[in-house]
């Protein structure tokens, strides 16, 4: 047996790569293909049963109806806002962890950042619901200044999602900064650059792939989220809600499939754009 394998390297390679490729093909490409195909069918409006007749109506509706454009843009802007906020918040934290904190403090901070990931998503989202509520802490803090809580809406959604996904941005940034040798910072200073110039010319460019890695998380997780929006988003709906509503309440799986191609396309475009910067090479 081993002799046969030894004489036939192609067979060996096939046996080695076969199962993972099969898995990739079935679970990943297969699921995507199934999704796309489902989008070309329709659902019976009454029973919700899928009717296997080929039609582009779902895509026509998704791309021609204004409401889906509005929702897409809202979702996209939310994802961008969440990503930018997370990047801005994560950078100083990651910088402190990687370059300033003592090894002990570093460990504690990593634990502190990872701990919230253990808590249930729902618990955290509902905690923010409490924060933003009319009798919540934000209202209480804002009251003396004559302000009130922004209430449930896009602001609350962005804040909640930015909170939920922050660890996914901090960790790659921290790893990226850890890998950034101190000698690079010293070299920059040595060559005449102050802290700001070093930040701009060395730290940020070297960190860029890590930011991209983090942004893929924050961006795609936001694109797909529908729960936080439901909890703190007020009347707003995101693409995720449209998909959820069409699957669970609309009984219209094909239309949901058509809508869910939007975030898939957005992510593909995003990844292609990122690829051009070369950031993925260093991932």
């Amino acid at each position, binding site marked *: 047996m081993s002799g046969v394998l030894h004489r036939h390297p192609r067979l060996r390679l096939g046996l080695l790569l076969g199962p993972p490729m099969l898995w*990739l*093909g079935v679970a*990943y*490409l297969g699921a995507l293909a*199934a999704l796309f195909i489902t989008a070309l069918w329709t659902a019976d409006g009454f029973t919700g049963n899928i009717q296997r007749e080929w039609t582009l109506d779902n895509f026509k509706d998704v791309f021609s109806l204004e409401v889906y454009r509005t929702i897409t843009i809202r979702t996209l802007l939310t994802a961008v806002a969440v990503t930018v906020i997370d990047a801005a918040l994560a950078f100083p934290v990651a910088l402190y962890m990687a370059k300033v904190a003592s090894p002990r403090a570093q460990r504690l901070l990593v634990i502190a950042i990872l701990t919230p990931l253990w808590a249930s998503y729902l618990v955290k989202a509902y905690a923010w*619901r409490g924060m933003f*509520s009319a*009798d919540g802490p934000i209202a209480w803090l804002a009251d003396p200044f004559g302000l009130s809580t922004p209430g449930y809406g896009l602001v609350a959604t962005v804040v909640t999602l930015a909170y939920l996904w922050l660890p996914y941005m901090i960790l790659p940034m921290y790893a990226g900064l850890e890998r950034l040798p101190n000698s690079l910072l010293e070299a920059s200073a040595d060559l005449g650059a102050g802290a700001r110039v070093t930040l701009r010319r060395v730290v940020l460019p070297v960190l860029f792939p890590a930011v991209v890695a983090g942004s893929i998380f924050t961006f795609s997780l936001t694109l797909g989220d529908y729960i936080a929006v439901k909890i703190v988003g007020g009347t707003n*709906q995101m693409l995720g809600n449209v998909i959820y509503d069409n699957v669970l309440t609309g009984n219209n799986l094909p239309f949901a499939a058509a809508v869910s191609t939007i975030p898939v396309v957005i992510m593909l475009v995003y990844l292609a754009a990122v690829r051009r910067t070369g950031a993925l090479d260093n991932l």
Partner: protein
Amino acid sequence: MRKKRTLAGTAAFGLALALSLAACGTEDAGDDSSPDSASEGPGGFVPPDIAMADSLGDNEGTLSVLAWPGYAEDGSTDKAVDWVTPFEKQTGCDVSVKYFNTSDEAVTLMKSGQYDVVSASGDATLRLIAAGDVAPVNTDLIPNYADEYDFLKDRPWNSVGGQMYGVPHGYGANLLMYNTDVVKPAPTSWRAVFEDASTYSGKVTAYDSPIYIADAALYLMKTQPDLGIKDPYALDADQLAAAVDLLKAQKEHVGEYWSDYLKEISAFESGDSVVGTTWQVIVNYTKANVEAILPEEGATGWSDTWMISSKTEVPNCAYAWLNHIISPEANAAVAEWFGEAPANPKACDLTSEGFCDGYHAGDESYADQIHYWTTPIEQCLDGRTDVSCTTYQDWTQAWTEIKG
């Protein structure tokens, strides 16, 4: 070059596999909807041929119940509110309960085949029957069925061609809840959440389901007779557009929509919502100064039916549950807890003083005033034949647009 070819090959393989998988996945549904029964339903559909039980055997074990919140209480919410435990003791069937929030959710969940019985409202029942997700029910095997009000039997939403698909459970109206500390004077009309919504802008709430369009249609039916709305579930395109406009105007003042009843409770308790549509059971749960009224325009409402899944493996426990839930004791307990009229008149002997009168139990003419949730279909339910009406799919689309 070789690498490219391999990739293409993998993709093609994946695609082929996906096609065959997808084909397998929908095979069942396709077969179910094939016409092989002669009787027609009100939507112009033919229910699939599904066997009905003709005798009962020993109870099997675990019963999975899909219910509206508050319909299957086991004492975990309130120790005194428990009609599941007695059932378990009597029948030996272990009950697991899943609550759903909208009729649409119930329809979707029933498609999974994981639930044995369901409490379905009128906007879900026919869809379940037509899709073959529920089985016809042999009422002879349910002793308590004989006691139920006759005007609830053989209705368009619970039977097809004279065959019952479940047992009536109870009926009630969607109410208007308001925070008594904030909303003054007390509202008497749905106007509070439509034209007057701006008074409590940002603190108005509404039910997050396309079926809520009927609430707007009902309000328009009473306030704008020119539109010619006779039945809030039979809207032609213009009438639907008018309802959508009303709801879009309302949306400006809505803080958030609710479908999860826990969310509405928390919103009223925190003061984020102060006025909006509700169910009596939510009023019972809410720990804040709230009150609920039946506004002068009347209301949409529900008439619920307990149904049995066509895929159940525990038919005996399922029949036992149906018999139990409409027993005078259980029916009375549910009715009082949820805030609806019981379907079994004997339950009225067990409810608190005046309860059944308050909910007009057995009052056929009052029951007719509630506009029970029904699935809007192309054939106008109000009998018009000169126009075609908007379907539930249209409503779903409209609802997405309203929320924007």
